[in-house]
């Protein structure tokens, strides 16, 4: 669906622009960027998409999403 597609495009773009730093740092930078700049409902959307298999996520973006999912599932109190 289009909202998810947009989120996937956005995180992939962040991942591509941090990739030059090497995988490990790029994954951390991408996860950190999303944590810092995305509203909770967007992060929740990304988590849901990841849980659904995360179609379309590039490697770094996928790893960053998994890192976010592991760190603590973001509270969804904005969209309740």
């Amino acid at each position: 669906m289009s909202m998810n597609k947009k989120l996937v495009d956005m995180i992939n773009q962040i991942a591509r622009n941090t990739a030059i730093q090497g995988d490990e740092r790029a994954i951390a930078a991408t996860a950190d960027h999303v944590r810092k700049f995305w509203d909770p409902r967007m992060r929740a959307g990304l988590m849901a998409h990841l849980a659904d298999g995360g179609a379309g996520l590039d490697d770094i973006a996928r790893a960053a999403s998994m890192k976010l999912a592991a760190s603590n599932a973001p509270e969804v109190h904005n969209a309740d």
Partner: protein
Amino acid sequence: MLIKETDYGTPASVSKELVTLTIDGSEVTVPAGTSIMRAAMEAGTEIPKLCASDMLESFGSCRMCLVEIEGRNGTPASCTTPVSPGLVVKTQTQRVKDIRRGVMELYISDHPLDCLTCAANGDCELQDMAGAVGLRDVRYGYDGANHVFDTQANLPNTNFLSKDTSNPYFTYDPSKCIVCNRCVRACEEVQGTFALTITGRGFDSRVSAGMSESFLASECVSCGACVQACPTATLSENSLIETGQPEHSKVTTCAYCGVGCAFKAEMRGEEVVRMVPYKDGKANRGHSCVKGRFAYGYATHKERILKPMVRESINDPWRETTWDEAIGRVASEFKRIQNQYGKGSVGGITSSRCTNEDVFLVQKLIRQGFGVNNVDTCARVCHSPTGYGLKTTFGESAGTQDFDSVEHSDVILVIGANPTDGHPVFGSRMKKRLRQGARLIVVDPRRIDLVKSPHVSADYHLALKPGTNVAIMTSMAHVILSEGLENTDFIKSRCDVAAFEEWRAFVMRDRNSPEAMEAYTGVPADEVRAAARLFATGGNGAIYYGLGVTEHSQGSTTVMALANLAMATGNIGRPGVGVNPLRGQNNVQGSCDMGSFPHELPGYRHISDVATRTLFEADWNCTLNPEPGLRIPNMLDAAVEGSFRALYIQGEDILQSDPDTHHVASGLAAMECVVIQDLFLNETANYAHVFLPGSTFLEKDGTFTNAERRIQPVRKVMSPINGYGDWEITQLIAREVGLDWNYQTPIEIMDEIARLTPTFTGVTYDKLERLGSIQWPCNEEHPEGFPVMHVENFTRGLGLFMMTDYIPTDERTGPRFPLILTTGRILSQYNVGAQTRRTDNVVWHEEDRLEIHPHDAEQRGVNDGDWVTVRSRSGETALRALLTDRVAPGVVYTTFHHPMTQANVVTTDHSDWATNCPEYKVTAVQVSPSNGPTDYQEEYSDFAEKSRRIVAVDAAE
């Protein structure tokens, strides 16, 4: 009271050496190189003058300023004679008195004696000088040759020239001209346009625009510098001619662009007679452009909305109502929507055109009143990458210099900016430095005026393909490092060396060489090499950039690449260097400083930071949401998807200014309560439910912060005809939703800002009154502000080099969309044009045109002036073509000042990876001939017309 700056007659000397002389019996000490005229004035003696002004280099033509010097023959002109040690000068002797009176008599004998009915009456230097020299009679009659009367002895007077009223804002009346040359010099020295000349010699000499054209037809850009310089009524503002001389004035700040010119608003009662650039204004130094000086008529335009309005649905006509009902509606709707759809379903957009105080209150209302961080600003769509990029590399989200700094630059790199159109007064100051010999590198797909204009030409114009800024900047760094031109001392002492080494290894890769990048950029490698060498070795190197850098999918990366380049060459931390964003709107810097971003509290502190949140929570007596909110594009996405339902927009027109119009429209249409606070029914208001009439900068107190971080006062010169200043309207909403706000004046708001923002700690209205303006940071360490940043250390400590990998945008050309569309602006119009279109500035720009290279046009059978459609993956629009080789083959260009153009129907929703700043500057399009506007344009203008219907208040209600 009318504010009058002292005119010292000649510019100040910058010499450090001091010289002492005696003038009229008193000792005076001044810098070497000062004129006798200026030295006298500094000591309090005004020597008569007509052709001199301290805005201009001395000229020495009028012979009014003669003095006698002991031991020297003759009577030298004091404006052209520099001081020297031990001189003994007499400014008033019988000899000079006689000469001055004789000269004056000659002037007056060829000047109309209609002082009583003259527009300059009471403000005429010729009148003043006649008084000063004691002129009592004129022995020559008007029977001889003169320039004053249209007939002579019943025959047409061939020396007479009639008035030129072609310019909508000022009139040239040659019969009053004393040929002092001040206008010509103002146009050259201050404005740098060289539109005026003196034709003929002696008695036949006349001021002439262009090649004896009318002002409007000439190169004149209507900056008004000549009008200001003219000592007589020859060049006068039409508003002055119509209204009469002003009686009081207040200093205020232009509300158009990020230069932030200071003006004297010269008034008669509550009527503006004219706006005169303020000589003590540190951003503009007494100059201005056509917008600030002349285009203020929108404030009283008949289409301005003065009463609040509401409607149930966007298909209904508007209904005028009371403030109570309108404010009540906003509060109850926002509450209802939050109850129904969740807290996060509402948000706000702050305006970069409003004052710091206005903006601060909107973000406070959203955070404190609605408990969310869904607040963003239109700076999102222009300079958000600047904040991100400079914060990452230097540690502060702002440009590094003041505008005066350009006077010390030796090499100027201009990338993605068009200063002479977008930031005209700074453009003039830059051109002045270039005429003095500074070198110039322009990086821009289009041949902007700076590349070749009178007495200025770029050493290198790197006409790159749109979207390849990162490639070109990284390859310039490659040249500098591979040729050993970097500033090792600076890097070692000021920067994070490990990050530098990593960056160096990255930059040195072959694929970053100009030869390898040529395939993407289209710029010959040897030109890039030469430009890089010049920048690294030419002395003080300064970088100026604009929206052509930020509005790309790699906008933030380019900003970091510019920062890398400045650090690698040691061009940071002193006058003449630095990385300088040229901001679009007047208060872009301020709106960002004031916490308009959804992840940041005022002062660029992340919302997740507990200490900062605690500070605000204690002051505001509330609990703040610790999560970042939605940015504008995310709000629109969320609206379409269903979780975002209400938006309070202060002074912005996102439907016209934001990309991918169809997407913006569907987002707005999905909302249940859109509140617009603005001067006019703008395009976004077509989708609004409540309209709150806003106020102009003439009607409220406050501050703007310009592109040099300069906080400048905005002063109320008339009562708001809509009833309230913008900050008061926001306060009404806040009180209605139950917040205990009691600001009596914006002073209290600034006190709160200072209390909560470390970079503003020392800012008060009293201090602004005293100093005129303050460049933040202003705190204990820098009590009077800080012109040049990062002098000893970067704000973040060590400068951080960032690897800037070039990643081509997803927006690619191909067989269906073979051309690249890029967008920009022109001098006479401003942003979406809502204000400037409602002034006489339209004479310079009636419509937006599509610039296309003759080669591309020919292939498509398009002639100059033909209607064409421009189609992209997002949509299509039609406008008329303008054939020009300013754009390269393969590139087309347009402005977006008129709503009918709908240029943003075509732009896509690609955006900067870090900030979501939209990629306006690169859209793949096809251009084909057409017969006129598209169906969508026609439908839209019907719709717009319908949604602007207003039903007046019923008196019985």
